[in-house]
């Protein structure tokens, strides 16, 4: 069993890191451990458990701002926001369905470290677009902060964004300030029925290019749709292409009616209202419609090319299953387990159109061998290495989690 160091405040966190820095020890930075298997497999090392840095320290609904200790469970934050008819607009996915564990266990620090987003990424952005400020400890054992509690802020470098999506390799975050937004009155979904992947992406592109402020654009191929808990989707007997509209009541009805007219050429349609709509988007968000237990890739690509990428991969690897989000720009792709996770094929297809692929789920041995994150061009990789060396010169935090040897 590795050592677990569990600081109860910021000072202790700093002391722990300073100790590791001085002693040339490495630390695995952990919130609740819900995303422990995301990233390259780490060697065994002492764990810096930040789950005690928990609690919302500032929440002003009228100012649309919330500050919490990095170890605060996301579940608590979402409950609090929901009580005030607000939400995290970037719709962070819950990774329990994909990685195992209990729903809602993740911490806000983990969410930021992995730059989690959901279907609303297309209109609202990702975690990186909603972080206003951070406090943390760098690999030097020194405190630093960045940003503030207001949305409009260009004072100094946006270190908060740099920390977001750095998988805990640049700093141990202790406090996070987020922009929060009101929950719209209504959310409805238009379903287009029976489209193949290519046609679906065309339809989604048309909806994305409309003025209807759509907030979800996904395509669920036939076999996956049949697994839905939403009866309309499950019983449709075909693929469903989903377009979500949110806003004040009259507006949603109007926009949905317009979309129906504009997309009439794509054939049969159905509507999902509040509860059913929410159910489907949660399934899409959490990737719960794909076969579990397989290897899972997350592809971020030029949206219009989504179907082409999948075709290329499916031509070579048997048993590929997919769900498309972000109008084709996000592809969740599962495949039967193989030693190399098909990484060369997957990445070559992605490189053809522009984008990157992350191996989200695979055995520890595979995640040790196969680059989990998309290999970068040399100048970018070199620059990233220099940033890491500047903020964590001894390589204290999560060594090797993103890139071998870093």
């Amino acid at each position, binding site marked *: 069993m590795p050592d677990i160091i569990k600081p109860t405040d910021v000072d*202790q966190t700093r002391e722990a890191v300073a100790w590791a820095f001085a002693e040339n020890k490495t630390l695995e930075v952990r919130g609740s451990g819900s995303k422990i298997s995301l990233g390259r497999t780490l060697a065994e090392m002492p764990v810096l458990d930040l789950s005690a840095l928990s609690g919302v320290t500032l929440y002003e609904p009228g*100012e649309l701002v919330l500050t919490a200790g990095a170890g605060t469970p996301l579940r608590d934050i979402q409950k609090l926001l929901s009580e005030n008819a607000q939400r995290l607009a970037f719709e962070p996915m819950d990774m329990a369905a994909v990685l195992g564990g209990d729903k809602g266990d993740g911490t806000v620090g983990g969410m930021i470290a992995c730059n989690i987003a959901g279907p609303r990424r297309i209109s609202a952005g990702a975690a990186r677009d909603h972080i206003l400020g951070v406090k943390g400890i760098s690999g030097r054992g020194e405190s630093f902060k960045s940003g503030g509690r*207001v949305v409009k802020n*260009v004072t100094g470098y*946006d270190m908060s964004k740099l920390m977001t999506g750095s998988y805990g390799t640049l700093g141990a975050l202790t406090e996070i300030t987020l922009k929060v937004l009101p929950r719209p009155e209504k959310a409805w979904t238009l379903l287009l029925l029976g489209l193949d992947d290519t046609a679906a992406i065309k339809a989604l592109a048309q909806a994305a290019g409309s003025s209807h402020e759509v907030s979800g654009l996904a395509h669920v191929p036939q076999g996956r749709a049949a697994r839905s808990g939403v009866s309309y989707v499950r019983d449709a007997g075909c693929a469903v292409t989903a377009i979500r509209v949110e806003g004040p009541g009259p507006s949603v009805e109007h*926009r949905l009616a317009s979309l129906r007219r504009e997309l009439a050429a794509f054939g049969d349609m159905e509507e999902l209202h509040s509860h059913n709509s929410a159910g489907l988007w949660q399934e899409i968000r959490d990737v719960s419609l794909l076969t579990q237990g397989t290897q899972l890739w997350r592809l*971020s690509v030029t949206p219009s090319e989504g179907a082409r990428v999948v075709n290329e991969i499916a031509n070579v690897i048997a048993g590929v299953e997919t769900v498309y989000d972000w109008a084709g720009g996000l592809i969740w792709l599962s495949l039967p387990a193989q030693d190399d996770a098909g990484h060369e094929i997957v990445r070559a297809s992605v490189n053809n159109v522009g984008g*990157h692929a992350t191996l989200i789920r695979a055995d520890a041995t595979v995640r040790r061998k196969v680059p989990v*994150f998309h290999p970068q061009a040399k100048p970018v990789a070199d620059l990233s290495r220099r940033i890491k060396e500047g903020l964590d010169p001894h390589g204290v935090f999560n060594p090797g989690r993103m890139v071998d040897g870093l």
Partner: protein
Amino acid sequence: MKMPAPDEAVLARRDELITALRVIVPGEGVITDDLELSVYESDGLTAYRQRPMAAVLPETVDQVSRILRLCAQIGCKVVPRGAGTSLSGGSLPVVDGIVLGLGKFNKVLEIDYDNRCVVVQPGVTNLGITNAVSAEGFYYAPDPSSQIACSIGGNVAENAGGVHCLKYGLTANNVLGVELVLMNGDVMRLGGKHLDSEGYDLLGILTGSEGLLGVITEVTVRILKSPETARALLIGFPTVESAGECVASVINAGIIPGGMEMMDKYAIEAAEAFCHAGYPLDVEALLIVELDGPEVEVDYLIAEVERMARECGAENVRASTSEEERMTFWAGRKAAFPAVGRLSPDYYCMDGTIPRNKLPIVLRRIAELSEHYGLRVANVFHAGDGNLHPLILYDANNPGELEKTEEFGSEILKLCVEVGGVLTGEHGVGVEKRDLMDTMFDEDDLKHQQRVKCAFDPDGALNPGKVFPVLHRCAELGRVHVHKGQHRFPDIPRF
């Protein structure tokens, strides 16, 4: 304003540098003539001027890369420049450096409606992007007031904002990718047409980095379909407090307007005198709220906001009934800077952000300071996101008045920080607020930011004298200090 002392050794090599630059950029792209150079002496913060050794206007990425490598070798500093509209002295030249102007990078490279994005060179103006796609009904959302002139490269470097950013996000939220050249000549792509970039968010740290990290040579931005309709409300309030209350009610009700701008009495009077927009003159604060979307939504929300405004004590509410009227409502706000400028030989535009609910206190304190300094102030406010632009009126010809104005400005910005806000919402730190950085950040905070700078530009050659009050040498920042006692494991719960 103190700039780093020029390096005499570099100044002495000016001829050699110019000869070498001319090899890289043939023809008229290297400017050395005193008169022509005077164009590049300052930016939108006209109180400061400095003459660079030369200005270079490359046309290709390869030229940019070679220029930077050359300058790195010689130790010559480089100040990237877009359109030179920075209000914080971001593109103010340095004496022992060159200005690298991106003016010739002015092409729209690709319009991709299928992926709702546009690829442009950095010298294309902000409005130029919208103009390139408006025939198809699309637009680029972030809209700084300087949008006719400012370049998209400068927007990325400053993370520019605008009226529409309340609903549609800042530059940072609308840029998908860039091509970037580092001081060592490395050319790289960050992001692309896909929505998120892999690895560290280098695009995120670059946006708003004020030309200190690298030279942007291409930008991919997201475009949006224009809303079906837009209508605006012009609302007069008897007090600043009641206007502030109205802003809060709108936001609390879950309404995020396309734009929500406030002006105080003095700004209203100036704007009205300048462009006769029909602003009420018997009010203390004016709010312009724009709602956009389908007509049913807009009409519904206009009625909602109007109701809230009246509940907050608004006496004077007008809703635009035509596109022409909507534009008239905005005309005064959009011309607020020049309108105020007309009342005084000079004006100084401040740019702090505060938590919205602190507005009444902050305006009261500004009024007190105004009295104290004997300088008038007009306030223009991006009310929805708390970004305040006090415009201080002064006369630079009166000895000491510029200094007094700057002192007053600093007091305002410190006040913004004191109430939980920040020094700059969209104009950047530049040289202007450089020496105030310690009101927000301690030594360690700034050192960590500079360590990021070192990863991009280890010799501190790009845009020196900006953002950081003291630019530490990277060797010093990289040094590893271990303090006594750290070797002992601290007293922390362990399992």
